[in-house]
């Protein structure tokens, strides 16, 4: 579904990613793990079009998208939930969701998408007229995911959905991600919570210093020496 081939990405002069290659197949949950500053978010931002690769190719559903603007990529079916949600705090829950369906293609199906999001997150429907800034941490994260689902993505990219959540909420969050995946949405997940991510994901990639240093099924990666020593103790 998504295939990335040897991309290099720079912030001005500073190189952040070196020859990253990865593959996401339809229906999968793929985890992207690694320490802070490894380039996980940069990878997501490049796929969604916020950053452009200097070299290499990104293909999604057989189209080359490396040079496409964000709105085109959203229309093709990729949606990203940014780190810590980044909801529009001064707007209502409903307006946040409405903006999730900003691209023309999604706007036409706003009503159905809204019903679906309210079905997955009934809490959001109860709070639809409330200011997003007054929501709790868990609700904010739900809103951020709901907002991303409003564009009807076939690939949902989540950047640390468990960040800052209480352990019990983290568990619920991962349950929801599983549920969304079972509804047919492919998932690319960036996580610091390695154990939980590997439990959930079908496959995972390990990133360090802007390079992919390991990949395989969750089991493979758990036995991977550097993962064990650095993250699982």
């Amino acid at each position, binding site marked *: 579904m998504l295939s990335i081939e040897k991309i290099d990405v720079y912030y001005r002069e500073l190189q952040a990613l070196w020859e990253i290659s990865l593959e996401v197949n339809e229906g999968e949950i793929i985890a992207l793990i690694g320490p802070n500053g490894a380039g996980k978010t940069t990878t997501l931002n490049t796929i969604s079009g*916020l950053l452009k690769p200097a070299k290499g190719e990104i293909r999604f559903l057989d189209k080359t998208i490396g040079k496409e603007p*964000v709105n085109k990529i*959203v229309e093709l079916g990729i949606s990203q939930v*940014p780190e810590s949600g*980044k909801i*529009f705090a001064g*707007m209502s829950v409903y307006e946040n969701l409405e*903006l999730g369906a900003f*691209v023309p293609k999604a706007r036409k199906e706003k009503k159905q998408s809204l019903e679906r999001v309210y079905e997955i997150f009934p809490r959001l429907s109860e709070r639809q007229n409330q200011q997003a800034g007054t929501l709790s941490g868990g609700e904010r994260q739900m809103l951020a995911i709901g907002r991303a689902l409003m*564009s009807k993505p076939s690939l949902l990219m989540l950047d640390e959905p468990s960040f800052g959540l209480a352990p019990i909420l983290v568990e619920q969050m991962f349950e929801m991600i599983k549920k969304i995946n079972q509804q047919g949405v492919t998932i690319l997940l960036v996580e610091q919570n390695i154990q939980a991510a590997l439990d959930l994901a079908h496959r995972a990639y390990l990133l360090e210093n802007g390079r992919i240093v390991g990949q395989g099924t969750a089991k493979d990666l758990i036995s991977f020496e550097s993962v064990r020593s650095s993250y699982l103790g």
Partner: protein
Amino acid sequence: MLGQILVFGILVGALYGLVALGLSLVFGVTKILNVAHGELVMLGGYASFWAFSLLGLDPYLTIIISFVFLFLIGAFLYRLIFSRTVKLPEETKIKNTLLVAFGLSIILQNLALRFWTADERGITASYLGTAFTVLGIRFPVVRLANLVVAVFFLVALQLFLRKTYTGKAIRATVQNWEAASLMGINIHKVYLISFAIGAALAGVAGTLVAVNYSIQPSMGLTWTLKALIVMVLGGLGSIPGTLVGGLILGVTESTTSYFISSNYREVAGLVLFLLVLIFRPQGLFGVKEG
């Protein structure tokens, strides 16, 4: 007498609020402090003046012309100039946009001088001298129109930002541009539209200035200053606050003129500006960052 002074202050202040509305919108969305805003007011004034004298339109109908004309000018200036500076990192961006806008104000002044000479012009229509009297207070039609026009555009802008998809995209961009762009919102288009609307509002204010006072190529700086004072008084990012800020400045000026001397009118405004900056830097109606 005091009632009359207050009413005059409010009716003039409404115009100040309108002048500041565009500046505040542009600054709030794009973080461009457009010190050439007063020159855009001047261009709006000329657009109305020519529409009035060549086409014989009613002064208040020429608002449509100044609005559309300045909307286009604003879009053009953004494309040509400011789209390049907004991409810079925060600190350089603020410095560079200030310098660029200052240069632009000089260019626009000189172009106006070249095309329309330094002569003062004004719009005087037959009914503009009339006034109502209510409870012994005079309400000149021209001044009353300031309030009506200012409130109209304030409400229209508010509705646009709250009810339309484009308006919501503008608000989303202000709150979190990164998340907004992930929604597929084209940030540069949002900036362009906001800048153009800000310019169009300056154009409308220009029409009112041409009807209330007179216009000339060098008038811009005065209005930029007033708009800056009002923007700070009202608080950044607060649209109703901008109108109230304008009213406060208007009343301060009119009471100063009456009780002290009209020579000190502008001084009073600037003193008020300093006091607000010292004691309430977020403005009277602004909210603190975050």
